[in-house]
């Protein structure tokens, strides 16, 4: 059994508008048999945090194209994207590029 993990989630660039305008969220993912990965985190966000219009944030099992993801301040494309295994106290940032200009 993997222990519960605490994460700091941050939404910016307009993505926060899908989360009541709140940018910073401290969440705890419950313990489960397998370690948590990004794929599961996105499903968890969709099920637990997104209140309306989830299609503006997730597409299929990933984020909607145009939303950038940083894991501990590094582009998630360098970190394995959906396969990245989350660690306790990880900092995950979602920045929308789809807003304004």
């Amino acid at each position: 059994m993997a222990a519960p993990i605490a994460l700091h989630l941050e939404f910016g660039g307009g993505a926060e508008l899908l989360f009541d305008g709140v940018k910073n969220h401290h969440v705890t993912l419950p313990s489960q048999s397998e370690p948590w990965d990004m794929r599961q985190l996105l499903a968890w966000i969709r099920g637990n945090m997104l209140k309306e219009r989830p299609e503006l944030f997730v597409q299929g099992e990933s984020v909607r194209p145009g939303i950038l993801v940083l894991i501990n301040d590094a582009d998630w494309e360098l970190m394995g994207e959906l396969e990245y295994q989350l660690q306790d106290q990880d900092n995950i940032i979602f920045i929308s590029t789809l807003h304004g200009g």
Partner: protein
Amino acid sequence: MPVQCSSCTKKRAVLKRPKTGHSLCKDCFFWAFEEEVHQTIVSARLFNRGETVGIGASGGKDSTVLAHVLKVLNERYDYGLKLLLLSVDEGITGYRDDSLETVKRNQQQYELPLKIVSYEELYGWTMDAIVKQVGLKNNCTFCGVFRRQALDRGAMMLKVDKICTGHNADDVAETVLMNVLRGDIARLRRCTAISTASEGEGAIPRCKPLKYTYEKEIVLYAYFKKLDYFSTECIYSPNAYRGHARTFLKDLESVRPSAIVDVIHSGETLSVKEGVKMPVQGTCSRCGYISSQALCKSCVLLEGLNRGLPRLGIGKHHRLHGKILAQQPLTQQEERKLKAIDF
């Protein structure tokens, strides 16, 4: 597993560049980003020493990054430019008033002079008032046409030599697609140009120094540099057509990141066969602004608003221009067609 920077091989990479696939650390990324904009400016000869350059500033990510990078490069390479910020206040409560606050902070942060021109002072109408009259369907037409001219007018007041805007690679690719989808050959041919030539009186040359810069990199540059920008969607923006083009392009980019520069390349290389009829650029006989018709779009839209005929500038009513110029009354039938608003 942290990835090392492929350039300096010392520090931890923070991003994978969409254009090149390189993994770079923060410092190498900043350097590469700024140098590429510099290369674009130098190779296209966008500026000349001693010029005054107005940066179209909305407070959003693109223009904020543009202002920052131009200031850095102007100092680093001694371009000898006088930079200033030029903003348009469309009069959209709860949107532009907030984003203009960001521009005012940028003015302090970058120590650049700022000029704000408003639709209200230029046209006598705020976007809030326009939306009240025309509804939410065609309002973006008014806003887009008025903004283009407002920037020019502001630039003339400040006597700037050139205007530069924050249009990025994604924007240009989107515009190429939209012009293809609309069959707008004249715009398709123009839209990839990095700068507009001086088109005579009434228009100030414009350029897009971020034309080859990916949106992803602009956003990450702003994030890692902790630049202060505003990112709320316009409360009146139902620009559905652009939205579809955008989503399509973003989907393509996620499969093949080069899609964006490739679409731009296609647009740049395209040539229109002989014999295709192109509109002839002239000047508006009312205000003197560039126009391919007797009246420029802005004057037609304004006339429509002032006469309570908001549809006058929506769609094609060129044959009415003569009547409007001569201030002749429209027939009842003509009026009826132009009044109807489909909400």
